[in-house]
């Protein structure tokens, strides 16, 4: 039995298992840093804990760079360790907790009195533990008495969740354990760059790569797409915004070449006839003209998928999986694109079969649990709808309150953020575990919104870009300082354990909610003990879609693999859909979808399509990873990826400064010139603030169903700050020379 604390990584939804032990030799180990801004010299510090990978089915002992260096933030010098109040001079000064809590309670009451209950808002996060996410939803509705609560998962999983709910009646990212992928002979990865975002996951693609069956859909030759080289599979490079048409083209071939699983469609789905008809118009050559993907590759992809699905079903060999990621979901038609992927999987008869399936790869650490228990504007715990009278009655009973005290549905994140400081909008805002000043679309407008608030409270452990705007910053515990549960990308509930006592001035968010509820005379109870909150969550989720009622801390501590739904008295559900889907008729609902004009628009003239995305070294807004010296040294700043042709035409050299601009804003970054991207597209990671903030350029346009913003096809102009005239002259075509 190894010494140390068995827990999981603080970052992504793979939740790699790790062991934290006290640093054996002070000063040894890898450098941790306390550089609040990039590019300043790294100051090695002594990490308080040592990190080691731990054997677990998801990561098999592996960790990526982010995980290995995660302990560097625990003793970080830049940490907020006391409540900080912004003075009239704009400088934050430490105050005591009693005063801080009184100020918050007064601000809430003042906002209530002047603007009504809905003038107070809460913005949560997919990084919070289940206990915190659950209690935050309850806190908003019962203590703050507001309907205005939503969270950053809206920028992440909302399209996949909406599509999953519509088709299957339930939304669990992977409806099967991740090891199931190991035996697959074909895996279709739609818009997911796991080699950067969750590297240890790549182990589960090895079987498909060995079989030559890894098929990656990505406009860029991403690190993941590169795995398809050397016989590993196929890389399909659709034009940005045309993923939906590509999926329809693949589906068309499946139907027209008689490769669909007719018996499955007949017995286990509804609406398939309308879907089949809608596919008729998407023959491969037409799809080629829309997407730029050759018809031959579209056919080949369809046949490979069908062959592997058939072999898995008939011979019990291999398997066929379709996995979607943010690349196809973060669009104004993201829900429809995810629906098209689900339809394809249903045509092939994958969901609910023994060796095949469909799933979406959840991003944030608790992106799964965080979207189940009431942080969403329209939701109550257990993945219940807040508008459903039965769900409201159930929650009123669990909470011991009158049902009329539970507000109705609020606003999804983008609308929520647009309402900041507006006359009927949110005037007093709580932010928990999110950094909207960097991560939200049209970040410039969001920052202006934050500044127009009457009162902003941010709970964080660092002075994030959002915290910097706050009237009051409340320091909270980090991952290794708290107990709780997380639900990983497979819907498996796991334990986060405490390895360290937080610094003296730091509190947990549960404690904070509990004290504030008291000051606001809230009904019901607000415990500051995670185990007690989880026991309440069990009751709250009982009978809901995401039912945790059969799970407890002792069982998890004994090592049981607990997948929801786990009703009390059951053994949990590692694999969903074997006996039916979660609709009343047990059938999967197929909905015909077509591409929207907007998602496919092209940009004439000099403008380019900007896609935003991630780097291996950084997580989300970078509030944490930019403060880790090793990660920051490796990727200190945002770089704009562009094609050599695009660069040369504009006199841009590799490493040269460029401006990227549109009607919403402008950023200035260095260029990274390579051929892994199309000439009409540029890529910018969104982990950075200020002059390098990609989200200053993204538009707050959203999917009509999920509220997901469009992050992947913003129109931008790119210019060299100091152009290399010789380069540009050589690049323009001869007719231009004649004109000049």
């Amino acid at each position, binding site marked *: 039995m190894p010494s140390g604390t068995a827990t999981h990584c603080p970052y992504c939804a793979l939740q790699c298992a790790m062991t934290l032990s006290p640093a054996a030799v002070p000063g040894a180990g890898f450098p941790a840093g306390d550089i609040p801004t990039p590019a300043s010299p790294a100051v090695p510090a002594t990490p308080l804990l040592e990190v080691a990978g731990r054997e677990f089915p998801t990561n098999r*002992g*592996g*960790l*990526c*760079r982010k995980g*290995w260096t995660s302990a560097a933030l625990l003793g970080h010098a830049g940490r907020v360790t006391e409540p900080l109040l912004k003075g009239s001079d704009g400088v934050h000064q430490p105050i005591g907790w009693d005063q801080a809590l009184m100020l918050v309670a007064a601000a809430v009451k003042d906002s209530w009195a002047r603007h009504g209950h809905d003038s107070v808002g809460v913005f949560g996060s997919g990084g919070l533990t289940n206990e915190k996410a659950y209690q935050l939803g309850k806190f908003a509705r019962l203590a703050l008495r507001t309907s205005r609560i939503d969270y950053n998962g809206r920028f992440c999983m909302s399209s996949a969740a909406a599509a999953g709910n519509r088709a299957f009646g339930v939304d669990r990212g992977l409806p099967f354990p991740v090891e199931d992928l190991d035996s697959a002979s074909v895996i279709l990865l739609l818009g997911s760059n796991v*080699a950067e975002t969750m*590297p*240890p*996951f*790549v182990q589960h693609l*090895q079987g498909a790569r060995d079989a030559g069956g890894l098929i990656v859909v990505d406009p860029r*030759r991403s*690190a993941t797409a590169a*795995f398809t*080289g050397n016989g590993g599979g196929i890389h399909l490079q659709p034009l940005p915004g045309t993923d939906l048409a590509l999926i329809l083209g693949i589906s068309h071939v499946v*139907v*027209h*070449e*008689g490769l669909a699983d007719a018996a499955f469609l007949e017995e286990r789905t509804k609406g398939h*006839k*309308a879907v*089949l*008809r809608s596919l*008729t*118009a998407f*023959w491969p*050559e*037409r799809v*080629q*003209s829309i*997407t*730029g*993907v*050759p*018809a*031959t*590759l579209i*056919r080949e992809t369809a046949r490979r998928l069908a062959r592997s699905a058939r072999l898995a079903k008939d011979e019990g060999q291999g398997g066929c999986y379709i996995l979607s990621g943010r690349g196809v979901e973060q669009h104004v038609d993201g829900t429809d694109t995810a629906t098209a992927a689900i339809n394809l999987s249903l045509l092939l008869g994958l969901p609910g079969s023994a060796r095949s399936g469909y799933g979406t790869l959840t991003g944030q650490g608790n992106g799964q649990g965080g979207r189940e228990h009431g942080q969403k504007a329209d939701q109550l715990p257990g993945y219940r709808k807040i508008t459903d009278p039965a769900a409201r009655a159930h929650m009123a009973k669990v909470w011991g309150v009158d049902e009329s005290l539970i507000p109705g549905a609020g606003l999804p994140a983008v609308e929520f953020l647009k309402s900041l400081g507006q006359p009927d909008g949110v005037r007093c805002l709580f932010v928990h575990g999110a950094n909207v000043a960097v991560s939200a679309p049209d970040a410039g407008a969001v920052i202006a919104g934050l500044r127009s608030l009457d009162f902003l409270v941010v709970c964080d452990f660092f002075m994030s870009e959002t915290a910097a705007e706050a009237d009051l910053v409340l320091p909270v515990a980090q991952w290794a300082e708290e107990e709780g549960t997380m639900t990983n990308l497979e819907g498996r509930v796991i334990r986060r354990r405490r390895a360290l006592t937080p610094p003296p001035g730091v509190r947990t968010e549960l404690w904070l909610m509990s004290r504030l509820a008291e000051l606001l005379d809230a009904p019901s109870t607000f415990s500051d003990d995670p185990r007690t909150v989880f026991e309440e969550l069990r009751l709250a989720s009982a009978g809901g879609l995401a039912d945790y009622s059969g799970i407890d801390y002792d069982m998890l501590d004994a090592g049981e693999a607990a997948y929801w739904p786990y009703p009390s008295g059951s053994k949990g559900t590692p694999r969903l859909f074997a006996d039916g889907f979660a609709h009343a008729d047990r059938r999967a609902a197929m909905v015909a979808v077509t591409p929207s004009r907007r998602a496919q628009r*092209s940009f*004439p003239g000099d403008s380019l399509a900007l896609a935003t995305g991630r780097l*291996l070294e950084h997580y989300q807004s970078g509030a944490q990873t930019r403060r880790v010296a*090793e990660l920051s040294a*490796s990727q200190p700043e945002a770089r704009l990826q562009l094609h050599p*042709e695009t660069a*040369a*035409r504009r006199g841009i050299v590799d490493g040269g400064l460029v401006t990227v601009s549109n009607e919403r804003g402008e950023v200035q970054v260095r260029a990274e010139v*390579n*051929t*892994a991207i199309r*000439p*009409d597209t540029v890529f910018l990671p969104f982990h950075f603030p200020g002059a390098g903030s990609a989200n200053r350029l993204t538009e707050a346009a959203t999917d009509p169903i999920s509220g997901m913003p469009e992050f992947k096809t913003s129109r931008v102009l790119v210019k060299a700050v100091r152009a290399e005239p010789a380069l540009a002259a050589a*690049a*323009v*075509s*001869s*007719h*231009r020379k*004649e*004109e000049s």
Partner: protein
Amino acid sequence: MSERIVVVGFGPVAARLVEGLLPAVRRGSVSLMVLGQEAEAAYNRVMVAEFGVGRSTAEALAMADAAELIAEGVDVRLGVTVKRVDRARQRVVLSDGTAEGYERLVFATGARPVIPNLTGINPDPAHPVLPAGVTALRDLNDAGMLLRAVTARQRVVVLGGGVLGLETALAAAEEGAQTTVVHSGPHPMGRNIDRGGGAVLNAALRSAGVSVVSNAVSTAVEHNGPDGIFSALVLDDGSRVEGDLLLLSCGVRPRIELAEGCGLPVAAGILVDHRLRTHHEPHMFAIGDCAEVRCASSGCPDCKGATAPSGLVGPGWRQAEWLAGYLEALAEDGQEAADSLPELAKEQPGVVVLKARGINLAVAGDNSAEPWDDMLCPSPDGLPHREVAQWADPGHGRYVKMTTRGGVLQGLVSVGMPRTAAELVVLFERGSELPADRSLLLRLDGTDQPAGANNDPARTVCRCAGVSGAAIEESVASGCASVPEVSKATRAGTGCGGCHDDIKAIIEKHFQGAVAA
């Protein structure tokens, strides 16, 4: 108050219009009737050949379901024809003798195949009586004839070297029929493709198992088969092309008789303006293969050089989508609101992508110019200079020609280079500027990958943990002799494990060096 709309015809374009009008039908603002001549509701005619060679099913071709539409409140009549349109009384007279009134009428009557004037074939284009063993492959019945021939591995003769003829010939050959294409001119697709592309196409067709008879003028159809069935196509030089089935693929002609019969102005198609309204009758419309967009204004720049209907389905679908929005606005928001909607956008010249498995071919625009044609001539009307770039590798069946003005494609030909074709078509349709180095577009089908194996010691070997080759070599030099040992010392290989082979190679190299020394 609901507005009565009658759609004449129920092909793929009409299906799209009906689908677009469904929301208004559900709201009760539109009362919709669709009249289809065939017994089936709309299906995708573009894929009839696929069905004809047994690659698809009639069910998979369906684009509408009559029963479902009826359940939604649409009045669907199948197997009826419209005998005439009574403009004065605003009603259509049907083949069963009944009449139906309309407030708005949409012609979606499509097109019919051109039947060439050959001895042995009734020349009346409106009522052709084709001999046994001869078909024009327009509907599902025709496709059934082809299917029987292909299944029996018979000889199929295709008359016509257009895109549909080639697609059918290639599909039939791939599915086992012996196929011959007979066409005029030196190579098939003579209207679209240039000489170089045509030569490469000819060779590709032959290697795909399709016989090609070029420069042919056919004069007669011989039917000396059993029961007088088709036996050979006779050419003007007296030669005979023998076969068991003759497919006529000589183009299509818009079906305009109904419109013409009620006095509406027509040219090749029914003339409509930029709101798809027939001339002088703003409550009558035409879409798809039967419609010719050419407004009554003589000075209209968009209509200058307008041509007959393209016969492609894409423009028809765009018209159907636009008209659905316009009709909905008319019914729900009134004339003024509807007329404030933007007019139908001008169609770009069509792109032809051959639907075939063995041959990759894309053609669009004007490809008549050769690379040196315009080198010394001034451009007309101050237009940017026309430039032609070309790549020919007939030995490997590859050919590309890009004709540009101001860097934007005016024409393209691509044979045997799928990724180049896909990219060029996208650039053509979007009107995007080509890279100045045109050869970039030729390398997309190449096997070369961005920078392969790299022995630079500073290069990152383990991306997950960010460990360089140099760091791994150092750990090996200081005693690590296995991947786990290197992992423990450097963290390399502790993420996805994808670099284990590279680490092994570094270890082996080190110890080989040690032995050699």
